[in-house]
């Protein structure tokens, strides 16, 4: 079903020619997986919704297949954001659809044990898997979440399965919010097949169909409050990519939902007069899933440019704190890890068509960071350090990956660990290094899963929002991004954040 939007229902940068004043029932800040679910659900429940997004919508014409150039357009700080303390790259998108435009669409439900742990440790009464399943189900059926079909796995994903089978580890095709994947492996730079059901293609159009208005290139800078009630958000229209501010806007609303992402929402709350912070937990408890990857080189071509970006996973080690996945990134970003210089480097590069890349992500519940505001900027400063115990899990995960590559028949593995030989040529060689004490700075890590900076807690003294996403200190200010997850969901966070957002929307609609 399609409907042509009314004039002014969707606004892009070129459409603004004066200051904007809007009134509505619910304003949602941020159109990522969290915000767009809320916008659609509430618009369909008959609420007058305005969705405000700082980034522009991207059409296929705007995609850049080149990884570096793409990052300067779709990512905040050109994709070069890092944490301080332990220096670790972490990205956040700036576009309609938020992270869903650039992510691999992996949708995994949090394991029952993880959710039960949240309930007991964070005083949550309705956080079990049985409580969340109806919300997971609703999102899954709307987005067509399904396991990646075999015919678009391609060799580099299927080799992962072979490795798991050989070693007796469980594995499965990854369930994704994708319909009609062609296996182009370019989820990061934008799905030209329009198969990935990113929010700009799925939830936002549905919200528009139900009457929601969408302001893009509109950066919220302040939330206005009267007593315990949020009354409006305001900010500036900003030019795509450059962020140059122009017109002002203000949206008055009966309910305000913040879904600007867990690195942006705390900054907005702080800048608006340290809102919702009686617990002093706004911006605290920031967590990541630090990840590391290794590349195996096989005797036969792997045709790595074919295959779902991330098609296979193993949850075998989730109990130990890590998850294993296949991975593909634009060749330019992959090549950054290839060792050597000059002709030696070129010889290594020529092996990429024979390569597969797999990664491990770690639940680092002991490694807590914080989001701090930066002077005269909405970009956050992120402080984060690796806890030694969490790092040990990462180091172990890396060696499991190495073992898997050899089990799948790789002739060598490039791991990127400082202080070890650039490549391992056999599992025996790798084992001679396995016991070596590594430091966090020895392993190349990156983390694109971030959460918990405005965590949910049943006790208002220990958390920012309640189980339904409402800020404890307010009557009508909600948060619906990954910031509300109390700690690591043990698996990729998007699906769980969307399930929570779905529940938040239902709660607002029921008020």
């Amino acid at each position: 079903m399609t409907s042509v939007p009314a004039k002014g229902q969707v606004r892009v940068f070129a459409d603004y020619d004066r200051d904007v004043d809007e009134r509505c029932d619910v304003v949602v800040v941020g159109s990522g997986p969290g915000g767009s679910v809320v916008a659609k659900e509430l618009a369909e429940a008959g609420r007058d919704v305005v969705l405000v997004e700082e980034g522009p919508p991207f059409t296929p014409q705007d995609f850049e297949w080149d990884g570096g150039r793409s990052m300067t357009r779709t990512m905040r700080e050109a994709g070069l954001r890092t944490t301080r303390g332990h220096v670790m790259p972490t990205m956040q998108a700036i576009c309609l659809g938020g992270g869903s435009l650039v992510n691999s669409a992996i949708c995994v439900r949090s394991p029952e044990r993880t959710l039960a742990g949240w309930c007991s440790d964070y005083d949550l009464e309705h956080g079990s898997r049985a409580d969340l399943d109806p919300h997971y189900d609703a999102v899954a059926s709307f987005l067509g979440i399904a396991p990646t079909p075999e015919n678009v796995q391609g060799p580099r994903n299927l080799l992962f399965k072979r490795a798991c089978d050989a070693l007796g580890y469980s594995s499965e095709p990854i369930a994704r919010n994708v319909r009609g994947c062609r296996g182009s492996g370019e989820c990061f730079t934008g799905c030209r097949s329009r198969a990935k059901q990113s929010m700009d293609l799925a939830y936002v159009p549905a919200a528009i169909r139900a009457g929601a208005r969408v302001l893009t290139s509109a950066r919220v800078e302040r939330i206005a409050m009267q007593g315990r009630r949020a009354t409006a958000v305001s900010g500036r229209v900003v030019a795509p990519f450059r962020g140059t501010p122009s017109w002002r806007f203000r949206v008055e609303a009966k309910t305000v939902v913040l879904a600007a992402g867990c690195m942006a929402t705390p900054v907005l709350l702080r800048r608006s007069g340290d809102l919702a912070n009686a617990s002093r937990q706004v911006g605290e408890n920031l967590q990541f899933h630090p990840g590391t990857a290794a590349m195996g080189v096989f005797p036969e071509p792997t045709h790595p440019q074919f295959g779902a970006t991330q098609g296979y996973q193993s949850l075998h080690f989730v109990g130990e704190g890590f998850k294993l996945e296949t991975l593909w990134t634009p060749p330019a970003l992959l090549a950054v890890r290839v060792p050597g210089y000059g002709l030696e480097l070129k010889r290594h590069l020529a092996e990429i068509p024979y390569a597969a890349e797999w990664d491990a992500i770690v639940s680092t519940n002991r490694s807590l960071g914080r989001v701090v505001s930066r002077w005269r900027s909405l970009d956050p400063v992120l402080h984060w350090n690796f806890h030694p115990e969490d790092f040990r899990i990462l180091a172990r995960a890396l060696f499991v990956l190495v073992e898997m590559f050899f089990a799948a028949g790789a002739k060598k593995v490039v791991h990127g660990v400082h202080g070890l030989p650039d490549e391992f040529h056999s599992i025996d060689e790798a084992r001679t290094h396995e016991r070596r004490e590594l430091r966090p700075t020895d392993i190349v890590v990156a983390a694109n899963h971030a959460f918990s900076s405005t965590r949910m807690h049943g006790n208002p003294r220990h958390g920012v929002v309640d189980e339904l996403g409402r800020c404890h200190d307010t009557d009508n200010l909600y948060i619906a991004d990954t910031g509300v997850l109390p700690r690591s969901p043990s698996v990729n966070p998007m699906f769980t954040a969307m399930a929570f957002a779905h529940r938040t929307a239902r709660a607002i609609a029921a008020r």
Partner: protein
Amino acid sequence: MLVVPLLLAALAYALWRVLAGYPTPSERYGTLARHEVAFVLAAADALFPRGGPVPPSGADAGVPAYVDRYLAAVPPLLRFLMRCLFLLFEHATFFVAAPGSGGRRRFSSLSPEQRVAVLDRWRRSSSFAMRIVFTSLRAIFTMGYFADPAVLRALRLAPYAIETPIVEADLLYPPIGRSVDEIRFGPQDLGPPSDGRPLDLDGPLHPAYAEGGRS
């Protein structure tokens, strides 16, 4: 009394050593200064010399032009930091000489072997900070090298052509920079969604990456 003129003279000498004596680049660059172009060319060719399994050199692949555009595209603070990075790399050999004779020169004046030795020193440094500097620098150059379609074709990593279905979103948002009044599609243009047919590895390449396509 002599201290001030001596200090000024020392400063002038230092500036001359840092910024003077660079050749005029053969191409025009919007962002990179003359001394930066020299450094970028030297580093790009040290990382990616001509020949081997992927024939183009860093310069052939247009790395300096890419770095020039990249610097223009990143936020001002990052641009400043990258320029500092280039400056640091170019002049670090004044303080810690490259191996071999005449090693206390700017990076761009060293021999190709010395440049590689300097890169290797950064990469294998026991200091995490030095390794990060190296990794950042290498990342920018590698992205530049891989932006060249000829490099991707040589590696058989160039993207394929893909027919993009017209979907509901195409009726809602215009390309970036255009107004919604300029949206070209209506309900009559909606086609069937992606059918999930696996990519044809013998099929044509993405037009911008095919032989004779955009460079």
